[in-house]
């Protein structure tokens, strides 16, 4: 019984990790390639979820809604890049933080104006409704398995794009030395714009994928953004591979920590003290992990060579 619980919680951890990866992938590229801190990345996730809601409602099909939400999220990312972010690349980090924080406030209020403050819900697509029995007595929602599958697919696609295409090569080169890439005759501004738009679309994809299981509401990306920053710090800034491994690691540590901290403590403490301490410790685990990584590998698990 206990091993099956561990297996199910591992699946849950994987699912959280996949979502985190989709958000962190764009974040780490933007940070690594452009040296630009974009706090507004979590808002892109929220915008993706809202687009999925609207397009699903309009077309009556989640698949169509998802397919329409992706270009819409890309468009929002590109508009933000052209109107605002472009003018911030040469500023220092503090000014970038202030400006992108302002965008968070602006867009969180903006979605309230357009969609209202109350949470919205997207129905689970009919094909993926219900749950399947994966172990004796253990049911797992099919849709969550689909999220894991889709996330792994996107990760494989990203790996291919970054490692085996010319654009990917430029991105990797940009992460190592942007000035040199520019000196070699590559339009670095255009590369930045492509990277930015792509990152925004990935975050939007994550938002659209979770819309059927979580409520779509203003500020839904803010909490995940913090975890996404933890992910890119652990993974190594600018490294897609690092972001992938770190995201799964954080997803697993967070979920298994919440699930089992009390049980493990129960071996050495009395039950009520154990559950109280477990509750307090579980949310800290991801940050403890980050602190440990920073002590022993200050530039992350998979640092980009400079």
């Amino acid at each position, binding site marked *: 019984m206990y091993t099956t619980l561990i297996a199910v919680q591992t699946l849950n951890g994987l699912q959280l990790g996949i979502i985190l990866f989709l958000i962190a992938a764009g974040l780490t590229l933007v940070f690594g390639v452009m040296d630009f801190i974009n706090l507004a990345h979590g808002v892109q996730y929220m915008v993706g979820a809202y687009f999925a809601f609207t397009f699903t409602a309009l077309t009556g099909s989640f698949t169509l809604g998802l397919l329409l939400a992706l270009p819409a999220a890309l468009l929002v990312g590109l508009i933000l890049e052209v109107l605002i972010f472009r003018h911030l690349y040469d500023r220092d980090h503090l000014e970038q933080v202030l400006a992108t924080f302002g965008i968070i406030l602006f867009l969180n209020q903006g979605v309230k104006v357009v969609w209202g403050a*109350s949470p919205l*819900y997207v129905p689970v697509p009919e094909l993926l409704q219900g749950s399947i029995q994966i172990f004796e007595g253990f*049911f797992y929602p099919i849709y969550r398995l689909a999220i894991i599958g889709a996330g792994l697919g996107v990760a494989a696609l990203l790996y291919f794009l970054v490692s085996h295409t010319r654009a990917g090569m430029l991105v990797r080169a940009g992460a190592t030395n942007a000035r040199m890439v520019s000196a070699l005759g590559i339009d670095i501004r255009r590369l930045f714009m492509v990277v930015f738009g792509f990152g925004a679309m990935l975050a939007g994809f994550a938002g659209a994928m979770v819309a059927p*299981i979580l409520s779509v509401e203003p500020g839904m990306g803010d909490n995940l953004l913090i975890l996404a920053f933890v992910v890119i710090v652990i993974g190594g800034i600018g490294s897609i591979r690092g972001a992938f491994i770190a995201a799964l690691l954080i997803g697993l540590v967070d979920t298994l920590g919440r699930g089992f901290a009390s049980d493990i403590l129960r071996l050495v403490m009395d039950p009520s003290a154990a559950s109280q301490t477990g509750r307090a410790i579980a949310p800290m685990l991801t940050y403890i992990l980050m602190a440990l990584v920073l002590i022993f590998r200050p530039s992350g698990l998979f640092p980009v060579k400079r």
Partner: protein
Amino acid sequence: MKTIKVLAGATLALGMAAGAAKADEVRIGLMYTLSGPPAALGEQARDGFQLAVEKLGGQLGGLDANIFVVDDELQPDTAVTRARGLIERDDVHFVVGPIFSNVAQAIQRPIVEADRILISSNAGPSDLAGEQCHPNYFNTSYQNDQVHEVMGEVAEQRGYSRVFLLTPNYQAGRDAMSGFKRHFTGEIVDEVYVPLGQLDFQGELARISAMQPDAVFTFMPGGMGINLVRQYSQAGLTDRVPFLSAFTVDETNLPAQQADALGMYSGTTWTPDMDTPGNAEFVAAYEEKYGHVPAMYAMQAYDTAMLLDAAISSLDGDLSDLEAVREALRNAEFQSLRGEFSFNTNQHPIQNFVLAQVAQREDGLFQTEYVETIFENYGDVYAELCSME
């Protein structure tokens, strides 16, 4: 120049005449949360009260009802400022509200000590029912613990021996667990507190699957409850582990939970389908006017208006003697939509508590429906701590 002064003087005089208190009106402040995500609850209460006043021809007990609606914004400090405004600027006789207990705890003293009467139509924190009770404070809803006690008693009566408890990690969540345990003698297999605002419950649901309890009890208000119910149903748990709850599946959340909430249980004092005098007309009138199914918040506010109507009638509209007004409220004869209703020594209700289950109506809308009565003429345990001196 002179003309202007005269005009200004005349306008001022007219304005003052209009603003001056009329003897034949009753002024009531409605204080509910009307902004942010929990606004749906406050709006239901406001609409329920106004529906009653409308039904009574704009009067309460023969006096013209002058109603001031204010938003407490779910901020205790804002609520206190607005309550003072109702007393000092609008000179209200009664304040009705609020939805949330932390707001009630903040506004009770400033209102009762200004010799005005506060009638809580929803919040029922234990301190205001016990040691902090006051002759000028009435409650027409329930004491918070009682709805959780209902679910504990249900689990006890149905012979559930292993129950899993799940609430948010804040005061009301801890109160819910202790309320549940008051009548439940079986084993609590686990008590899980989640951070307030958590939206993904997959980890907790896996734990429930693993432990295979006889039932789950939860108090998960607002958006958290919507997510929990949807995920509980998606995980295929509804049929295997009965879902006992309070403030989680109600008519404010059901439009979002839809069929995912079918079959889930809730502890309450009233359901829209209950066969009590006037209930069917109330539900029909409310739905016609506002376009959605009323929840208990609307019913309680409606009842509060009916209570005021009966009390003011019995005084022949004379609100000058505060002690007489209190006495009239205590003894008011009105027909509650819940059925039997009377005040306990702490001026909180003695009433029935029922088990409700979510069902779909013939017109496709979802509502909670009456299953059985769990407690009859039930008062709260804090009444004995209350002395009205």
